[in-house]
């Protein structure tokens, strides 16, 4: 009897031990986040099965996004050129400021709805969202740091080791996890709650100029700025004269094909009222500058999009209505969403007063 009892106790202890050993793996249970595709939107192109979204991954990605240590001198985080109040563009800057008083060579685009985007950068040179952050981190005129140094800096930080473990199951910190964690944050920057979206969902209605503007938009703009993402992600030459300092050939830099000369990615028009300046090099400071380009200043060349053989005729009246419509694409709940805000930076969540709009 006693022997039997001892055996039972031993067995229980053994089981408990086995439980602890097994728990080493089973203990890793990050809180999953369900990625919601807004109604009527296409399926995202990002492969979530390779990088399942979790609360822990998001928290790590957000910390990395706002951490200046990803740059050489500690001054430039991703968030310093991608500001939430500008829909994560560089607010009011044609080109952004990088390490050692350098300027970037292109306008920092807003960051949102990236799960639907296949290629990144104005020329589409980067083919995966996880890879995208490596370009600004290592570019001499941006964050100017080496990947080796970034990984080394993160490894010395106890808090990061803890967060990598929480997100990925162990304390390994490498380039792949850095990219995946940043993607976790970036993927959740979904902007789908503008007045336009509310109208589409039947929760609001356009006032007259917005309604008229939408009709003009459907007639004249929608073939490239396709709903619901307001871009078809194609590369087009819209008759922008090559800047004689930047000498940027656009898409041709990647494909080396002369027919891609001066083609740039069609930008999304969501939050367009907040993402000025416009154009790949930020040469247009207001929507009015853009309309003037389309109707008057365009330089039609061999690679200019066939849609613009006769430029894009727009009357003053149409420009007024279109502007009213484009303002309905501003998603103020996205611009102020505290989930995406820089840690402890209440005073940075408001844009500075400006005169450009």
């Amino acid at each position, binding site marked *: 009897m006693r022997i039997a009892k001892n055996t039972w106790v031993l067995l229980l202890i053994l089981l408990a031990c086995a439980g602890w050993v097994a728990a080493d793996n089973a203990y890793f249970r990050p809180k999953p986040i369900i990625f919601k595709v807004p109604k009527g939107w296409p399926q995202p192109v990002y492969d979530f099965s*390779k990088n399942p979204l979790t609360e822990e991954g998001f928290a790590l990605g957000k910390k990395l996004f706002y951490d200046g240590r990803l740059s050489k001198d500690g001054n430039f985080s991703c968030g310093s050129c991608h500001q939430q109040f500008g829909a994560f563009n560089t607010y009011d800057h044609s080109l952004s400021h990088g390490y050692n008083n350098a300027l970037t060579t292109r306008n920092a685009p807003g960051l949102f709805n990236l799960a639907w985007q296949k290629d990144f*950068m104005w020329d589409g*040179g*980067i*083919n*995966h*969202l*996880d*890879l995208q952050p*490596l*370009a600004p*981190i*290592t*570019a001499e005129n941006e964050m100017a740091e*080496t*990947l*080796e140094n970034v*990984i080394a800096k993160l490894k010395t930080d106890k808090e990061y080791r803890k967060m990598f473990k929480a997100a990925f199951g162990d304390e390994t910190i*490498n*380039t*792949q996890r*850095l*990219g*995946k964690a940043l993607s976790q944050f970036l993927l959740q920057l979904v902007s789908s709650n503008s007045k336009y979206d509310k109208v589409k969902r039947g929760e609001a209605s356009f006032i007259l100029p917005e309604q008229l503007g939408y009709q003009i938009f459907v007639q004249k703009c929608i073939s490239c700025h396709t709903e619901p993402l307001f871009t078809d992600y194609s590369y087009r030459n819209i008759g922008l004269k090559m800047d004689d300092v930047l000498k940027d050939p656009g898409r041709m*830099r*990647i*494909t*080396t094909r002369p027919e891609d000369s001066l083609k740039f990615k069609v930008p999304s028009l969501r939050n367009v009222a907040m993402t000025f300046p416009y154009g790949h090099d930020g040469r247009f400071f207001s929507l009015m500058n853009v309309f003037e380009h389309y109707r008057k200043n365009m330089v039609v060349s061999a690679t200019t999009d066939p849609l613009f053989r006769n430029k894009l005729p727009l009357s003053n009246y149409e420009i007024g209505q279109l502007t009213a419509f484009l303002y309905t694409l501003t998603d103020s709940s996205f611009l102020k969403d505290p989930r995406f805000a820089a840690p402890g930076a209440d005073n940075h969540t408001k844009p500075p007063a400006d005169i450009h709009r």
Partner: protein
Amino acid sequence: MKHSVYMTVLLALCLTGLHFRGPVPATAPAGKLRLVFHHQVGKNPLELGALCQNSLGDSITIERFKYYVSHFTLTDSKGRQWKPDPQYFLIDEEIPGSKIITLQVPDIDIGQIGFLLGVDSAKNVSGIQTGALDPLKGMFWTWNSGYIMAKLEGTAERSPSPGHRFTYHIGGFRFGMNTARAITLQIPPANQPLREIHITADINQWFSGASQINIAETPVCHTPGSLAMRFADNYQNMFSIHSAR
């Protein structure tokens, strides 16, 4: 009980079968095969930082030489192939240990060895990789996603670029610009099964393989495109078997 034994045997057969194309050789991985890479400029062993002469008569100093190899295929005398699990290796003159690769292979008579010089296009489009393919190894373009398949850097008196440097970063994986090259080498007669294959890579082939590339005219290649393709067509001839035993 009997059932599960059969199932296990069947499963094992299926799993081993996955590695083979054609009839299954009698044995599973039995031994280690060491591949030793030797780098030369013509007949002379490469010495980083030392002055030497290339095939076009240029006095050059080589400072960096590295390249990816992957997708090994061993073929026996009957044409049967053995493919080890896909693995990627970065061979770097600066790191002697990187020039020796050990593969687990079955005891077959190896008549031919094949491998890919470079990184296949699938790995160029699937995000960030780890290990030898980690972008922090400096063999990845961040602005135009894709691996640098092979890198050769140094100085040459006749180079017109700053510091008389020449820098050849050869990459590109898209259709028409793919600089990865399938290499096939015949094994000379030797006692089988082999335990060591010594492979020579002759840097002279970069300058005068399929076509001549003169440092004085072409000191730099940093983008995918037609120049990179010419380099790739050149370096695909740089390998030969030194010895096998």
